[in-house]
Structures are given as structure tokens and as C-alpha cells.
């Protein structure tokens, strides 16, 4: 709540466990937890835009993981830098709500509330209906995304750029 100190680096997994591949972000952060990442840096989030803006407020660097749907092969990993380029809104239509992750980023930009460093890992999904199973292709990509997140965190901490 208000007044609490945010860790300088946050990892936010976005998704809905009941909608198949939409769970991707949550599955990656749960892998990261298993790999020993400090739980206080990890946030699981539904992706509702206004709440997201509140979540990353005060953080110096933020890494987000979400499922995307842009017609690519399921399991494809997209690494996006929304500080440089707005996210392609269509890509994130798998999110449950229309005031979504890309909207939240653009709203924060308009209000000058973007974290100084922000990276988004999008994982291409296939099944987004309520009750769907996670697709095997997406499942296979999750450990790779987790490794990329850890590598990016190292780079961000070392101040050697954003892990590009």
C-alpha cells in the first residue's frame, strides 16, 4: 500500500491461470521462484492496466512477462523495449481487459510515470479460451524465458544497459 518502499527492480508476471496460454507470465515467475529468485521482487498480476501503473510506481527497473498473440509460432519469445517503441497493441489482445498492458504503458508515458527502465517479454500463445490447457510449445519456452529474465536482471543491476 501507500508509503511502502518498492524494490528498485521488479519482475511482474501477467496472466490468468484459467485461460490456457494466458497463464504464461504467471508460469514464468513461478519458475523464477523455484530457481531461487527473491520472492519480494516478484509480482503476479492480472494485467489490469490501472493497477499495473500503481504496481510499478517507484520502481527503477521493471521486467514484465505476458502471453501475446501476433500470429507467430506458439512458444516464440519476443523481447520488447517499450521505452523506445510503444508495444504493438494488437499483440496483447489475449489479455483479459481492454485497459491492458500496452494501454497502461502509454498512459504512464502520457502522465510521465513510466519506470526509467522497462522490458517486456512476450511469449506467443495459441490457446486463450477459459478452460484451455497450456499449449506444449508455450510450455517448452518457459524455462528459456526465465533464463532470459535472470540474464536481463543481471545486466540491469550491473548497469550495463538492459541486457541487449
Amino acid at each position, binding site marked *: *500500500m501507500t508509503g511502502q518502499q518498492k524494490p528498485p527492480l521488479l519482475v511482474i508476471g501477467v496472466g490468468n491461470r484459467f485461460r490456457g496460454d494466458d497463464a504464461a507470465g504467471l508460469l514464468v515467475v513461478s519458475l523464477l521462484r523455484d530457481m531461487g529468485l527473491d520472492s519480494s521482487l516478484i509480482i503476479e498480476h492480472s494485467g*489490469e*492496466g490501472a493497477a499495473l501503473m500503481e504496481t510499478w510506481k517507484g520502481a527503477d527497473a521493471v521486467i514484465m512477462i505476458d502471453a501475446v498473440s501476433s500470429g507467430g509460432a506458439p512458444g516464440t519469445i519476443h523481447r520488447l523495449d517499450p521505452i523506445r517503441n510503444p508495444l504493438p497493441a494488437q499483440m496483447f*489482445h489475449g489479455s483479459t481487459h*481492454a485497459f491492458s498492458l500496452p494501454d497502461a504503458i502509454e*498512459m504512464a508515458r502520457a502522465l510521465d510515470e513510466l519506470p526509467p527502465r522497462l522490458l517486456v517479454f512476450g511469449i506467443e500463445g495459441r490457446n486463450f479460451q477459459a478452460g484451455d490447457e497450456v499449449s506444449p510449445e508455450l510450455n517448452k519456452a518457459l524455462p528459456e524465458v526465465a533464463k532470459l529474465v535472470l540474464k536481463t536482471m543481471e545486466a540491469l543491476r550491473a548497469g550495463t544497459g538492459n541486457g541487449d
Partner: protein
Amino acid sequence: MKSRTIKVDYLARVEGEGALFVKIKGDKLLDVKLKIFEPPRFFEAFLRGRNYSEAPDITARICGICPIAYQMSAVHAMEDAFGVRVEGPLRDLRRMVYCGEWIESHALHVYMLHAPDFLGFPDAIQLAKEHPEVVQRGLQLKKAGNEIVTLLGGREIHPINVRVGGFYRVPTRNELAPLAERMKWARDAALETVKWVSQFPFPEFEQDYVFVSLSHPDEYPFNEGRLVSNRGLDISVHDYDDNFVEEHVAHSNALHSVLKSGTPYFVGPLARYNLNFDRLSPIAQEAARSAGLGPQCRNPFQSIIVRSVEILQACDEALHLIEHYQPPDKPSVPIHPHAARGYACTEAPRGTLYHRYRIDESGTIREAKIVPPTSQNQKTIEKDLWQFIPKHFQDSQNDLRWQCEQAIRNYDPCISCATHFLKLDLERE
């Protein structure tokens, strides 16, 4: 005759997703179809075989915007089944957490989704560029609602502290105290909101609706009351299935809910307002009057004013409940499950949310039925569009599309309760 077709990937700024198909030939409207798919069907199946105590947390997952509504309908239906009444401070805490959800959900819709329509902005981001202070007020108001839900619900998204019989843990007076200051600010911000939206330009569009909502003798409705209409309906929620039917619609996976007579009806803020105006708090009634509304409002575009009045109502009530809170002795009352049926309606931000369960002697759910507000409003939304679109035949395709979107947004359809994403096909022959 010139033929044009417009396809839009999805209808922006409706919570969740759905699809609308409109067909126009010359100056004749040939077809309007609103398509909605329904995850509640999935959840109804998912609930079967689960313990009764799991219903609030499972159904909370149906909607990221109104989880409290799902939890409240679930716990009340279970308590109805087992003959338990939750009173006193526990009942007050339930009203308080529902206030939080109304504030959150309504502020999001008013500021982020609906207001840009009236001010000629394509979205709230453009509105924020021109009027950052206004958008900040909306975001802070939403946050004030979040804070109530977070404190009482245990966490912000998918709250976990609500249980059949009460809560897992109740707050101390000291824990609630900081919320009182927030609510005082929020109540002022809500008053400003009512003033702000009352100045928007509204199209002339009054319809003769059948409004349906809960009604309680002494309270603006949240968790309890009889189901009433402006046409004389006055029933116990136990009789819901005898009075409303869900029709299969060929063009939609969804069921359209109608009165047994086949008449569509209208649930949500406008219905609640028209049926319960005299139970709004004095400050909310006065704000509505100052905004130019009487006790009746039949223009769905003005639902943005009514929604703002309900934010004010919720802030005022939450403040009152916080200031008068005395912690209960126990965080919940005991439950003794047995074979039974339970029914409940509560007022979600978007309207009446019906849950019905059949439980066996071991407390296992054997059957669940959930009717979300949006599926009840679908037929009324279609009916509005049949009336509304012919008034805009002369508009450009883009303008007409926007008008349709706005007319749908009047209902704040939480299509995430019911579908994937809204595609809009506007076809002119």
C-alpha cells in the same frame, strides 16, 4: 447501390471482449447481432465436484474487475443453502468491501473507458495528454477503491479473505483508520466527478426500459433484497428461475437472459438508480439533482452520471462504515453443510449477479448456475442499437462505428465474464 464493409479487430474500451455485427442496406437497418461467448459455462462445470467452501475463490476468477461480486453471490447462495445469516459487523464489512469494488470498477469505466467518448478523444491516453489532472483524479479514485478491497480481501487482485460465513481474518479499527482519510478525499473527488460528467453532451435517447435490480427497504442495494422491476415484479431471489429464462441465440454461444414473457430487461447502475433513488444517501441524491437528474433517468448515455453518483454513494457509505466499525468477536460464523439448494443475487457494479448451487450431504457442489449481468443486458443492448443506428445513417463509417461502441459502453459490459474479444463488423450494402 454502393457497398462498403468495415471490419474492426476488436471493440476498444469494453472490459474483456466480444463481437458486434451490423448490416445496413441503404437507409434500412437489416441486422444487429451481439455475440458473446461464456466462460461462466466453463466455471459452472469446473465447480461441480468441488467443496462448497471453494466456490467464492473459484468464481472470483471469472472476472478480474469484479471478483468481490462473484465472491458475494457465492457466499450468500451457500449461506442461503445452509440456513445461515451473517449479521452485524461482518455484514458491514461485506458492504464495505463491495463499496471498494464499486468505486474501483466505476472509476475505471467512467474515466478510462466512457468519458473519452463524450469528450471526443479516441481513448483515455489522449485524454491524459490534454487533461492529466482529470485522469490522475480518476486513477486515484480507483486506487482508493482498490485499497478497501486489498485490506478486506487480503490482496488486490483475486481477493482470498472472503469465506462462506464471513472472512478468514477481520481488520482491527487501527488497520481501517487510514482508509477513512482516503475515503474523505475520495468522496470529494466523487462529487467533482459527478459535476464533471454532468456537463458532457448527451444525445436524446430515452427508451422505455424494464429495469430490474435488488431492492432493500433501508439500503441502496448490494448484498440483499428482493428482486424488483418498474413493471411490478417483486420476488424473492429463490424465484429467479421461475421469472427469467436464458434463451439460446443462434448467432451467439451465449445465452440471452429475458423475462419469461420474452421481454428484455436492463440491470446495472441505471436500473438500481431508478428503482432505489430514495435509498441513496442524501449527499448522493443532492449531487444527482445538481447534475440535472431527477429520480428517474431513461437515457442510457447518462449512465455515466449515474455511475458517478454510485461512486459517491459507495464512498459515503464506506466512510460511514469505517467510522462506526467495531470488530466482531469472531471473523466468521460456523457452517454446517448438508444437502440443500442455495440461491443469491447481489449487485455487481454492472448489475444483478445470480448464483444457484445444489450441494450434497458431504458439502460437495453437484450443480452450479451463474448468470452474470452482461448476459442479462445483451438483448437490451441489441435493442438499443436497433433504435440508435438509424439515427446515424448519415454518419461516416468511422463515426457510426464509434457511436455503436459508445452505445455498447453505456452498459459497461464486462465481456470478460462472457467472452474472448469483441470484433466489430459493420457492413453497408
